[in-house]
C-alpha cells in the first residue's frame, strides 16, 4: 500500500526529535509526525526548518513540497536516492537527445492527455449539456497526434494547446453556477474556477514530482516541455496526463457537490485565490481521490490513483531502458 501524504497548514517550526518529526506551531501546539508513515510532506504554512529535520526526511526518502505566501508553489526538497541508477539517467538523456525518440514519447504524452480530457467530457455529455462538438474535436486532434508525421515538438504542442482550449470551453457548462470558466488564466488566476484549477494542477504536479523521484528518473529532463523552464519538465509532461484524471475531476466534484462555494475564494489585487478553508476542503477531496482504487488490467489488482501515477512513470522508465512500449495512462475504467 502506498502511504498517505501529510499536509501542514500551520505556521511554525519543523524540527527533528530523535527519529520523529516535531512541529511546533505558532499557536503553541506541538505535533509529532512519525516519518515512516509519510509518503510526501506538504508545507503550506510559513515553516522554518533546519538541516537536522531535512536529514531525517532524507533518511526516510520523503520529498517535501514547499508552498509560500498564498500557497504559491515555491519548490521541492527531494531526498537523495539510495540507489543511484546511472544507467537510467543515461538512457533518459539519450532518448531526449534523439529527435525521433523524443518526439514519439512526447506524442504518447499528448495522446494520453487528450484521451483523458475527452473521457471527462464524455462523462458529462448529456448529463450537463451536449458536448458532441467538443468530443469530435478532441477525437480528431488525438487522431492527428497518432497518425500524422511531424518533425517538430512545437507542432505537437500546438495540437495540445488547441485540445486544451476546446476542453476548457466545456468547463463553463460542466461546473455548477455561479462557477464559470470563460477562459483559462493563470499568473494570476482571475476567476474562482481558474483559481481552483490552478491550485489542483499544482497538486498534480507535485504528485508527479514525488512519483518521479521514486523511480530514479531525472525530473529535470522532460520530453514535451523544454528543459530550462524553471520547473521540473518531466513532471510537467506527466502532469498533463493526470490533470484531467485528478485535478479536473476533483474540481468538478467539489463544485458540483457544493463542497466549496464562491465564498471560499478571496479576490484581491493579485487575482483570485482559494481561502484557507477552501484549500482544506479541496485538498481533502484531492487526497481522497489519490486513494481511490481501480482494477488494473495488467497488474491484476486494484491500484490507487496515486499508484497509477507511479506505474505510469515506471512504464516510461521501462521504455527508456528496455525499449518496450511506453503506455501513457489513458483512462480505461
Amino acid at each position, binding site marked *: 500500500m502506498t502511504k498517505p501524504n501529510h499536509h501542514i497548514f500551520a505556521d511554525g517550526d519543523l524540527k527533528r526529535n530523535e527519529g520523529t518529526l516535531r512541529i511546533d506551531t505558532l499557536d503553541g501546539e506541538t505535533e509529532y509526525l512519525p516519518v515512516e508513515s509519510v509518503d510526501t510532506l506538504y508545507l503550506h504554512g510559513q515553516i522554518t526548518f533546519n538541516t537536522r529535520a531535512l536529514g531525517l526526511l532524507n533518511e526516510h526518502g520523503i520529498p517535501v513540497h514547499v508552498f509560500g505566501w498564498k500557497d504559491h508553489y515555491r519548490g521541492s526538497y527531494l531526498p537523495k536516492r539510495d540507489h543511484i541508477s546511472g544507467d537510467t539517467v543515461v538512457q533518459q538523456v539519450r532518448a531526449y537527445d534523439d529527435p525521433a525518440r523524443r518526439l514519439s514519447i512526447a506524442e504518447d504524452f499528448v495522446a494520453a492527455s487528450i484521451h483523458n480530457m475527452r473521457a471527462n467530457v464524455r462523462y458529462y455529455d448529456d448529463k450537463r449539456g451536449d458536448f458532441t462538438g467538443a468530443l469530435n474535436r478532441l477525437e480528431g486532434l488525438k487522431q492527428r497526434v497518432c497518425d500524422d508525421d511531424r518533425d517538430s515538438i512545437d507542432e505537437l504542442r500546438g495540437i495540445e494547446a488547441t485540445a486544451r482550449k476546446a476542453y476548457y470551453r466545456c468547463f463553463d457548462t460542466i461546473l455548477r453556477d455561479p462557477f464559470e470558466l470563460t477562459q483559462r488564466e493563470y499568473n494570476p488566476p482571475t476567476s474562482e474556477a481558474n483559481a481552483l484549477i490552478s491550485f489542483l494542477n499544482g497538486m498534480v504536479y507535485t504528485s508527479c514530482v514525488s512519483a518521479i523521484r521514486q523511480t530514479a528518473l531525472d525530473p529535470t529532463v522532460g520530453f514535451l516541455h523544454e528543459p530550462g523552464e524553471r520547473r521540473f519538465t518531466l513532471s510537467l509532461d506527466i502532469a498533463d496526463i493526470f490533470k484531467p484524471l485528478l485535478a479536473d475531476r476533483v474540481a468538478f466534484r467539489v463544485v458540483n457537490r457544493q463542497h466549496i462555494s464562491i465564498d471560499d475564494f478571496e479576490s484581491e489585487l493579485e487575482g483570485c485565490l482559494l481561502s484557507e478553508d477552501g484549500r482544506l476542503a479541496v485538498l481533502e477531496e484531492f487526497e481522497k481521490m489519490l486513494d481511490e482504487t481501480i482494477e488494473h488490467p495488467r497488474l491484476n489488482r486494484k491500484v490507487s490513483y496515486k499508484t497509477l501515477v507511479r506505474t505510469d512513470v*515506471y512504464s516510461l522508465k*521501462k521504455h527508456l531502458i528496455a525499449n518496450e512500449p511506453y503506455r501513457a495512462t489513458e483512462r480505461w475504467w
Partner: protein
Amino acid sequence: MDSVGWEGDSVVQRYIARERDTHREPRVRITGLMMQYHEVCTRELWFFSRGVDIDRETSNIQRGTHIDETSYEGQRRSFSINGRIVLDMLDSGEVMEVKASSALEAPAKLQLLYYLWYLDEILDIERDGVLAYPAERKREPVELDADSREWVEESIRGVIQTVERDEPPELEKKPYCDSCLYQDICWV
C-alpha cells in the same frame, strides 16, 4: 572490450581466468543473487543487472531476500570475497545459506552451489555447504559434484548471455510474478 567470443564452453573458462586475476573486472560480475534470479526469471535478472530499481519501501510487496540475518548468529562468520560474493562460513567450515522458506529451493541451492564452485575454481578451497531454513527447522547438506558443477557452469553461461542482451527477455507470466519486486515495472 576484447574481441574474444563469449560463446560455448570458453565462456566459463574465460570467466574463471578473469576472476582469478583479481585486478581485472570481469565483463559481467556475477553475484549469488544474480544466480538466484537467473533460476527464477531471466527477465528479473536483466532488470537487476541494469540497475533498474524500484522503490522497495513503497513497493506493495516486500519479499524477504534478507530474512533472518540474525539466525545462527555467533556460529557463522561472513566473508566477502574479491568484492564479488559474500558468504557465511560456519565454525565447522561449511558454507551456510539461510533462507526464509523452502518455497524457492532451486534458486537458493544454485546460489550456494555457485559459492562452493567459486571457492573451488577461483580460490582452490574445497568446501561443503548447508542450506538452512530456520523457520522450518530444516537443514539440507549441499555438495559440489559433477552434476551440480555442470548446473553452475550452465547458469554462468546463462547469466552472461542474459545480461549482455540489449533488451530484456520477453514478458511471460510466471507463478513467481505475484511476489516479484519488479512486478510493477514489468507489467505496466
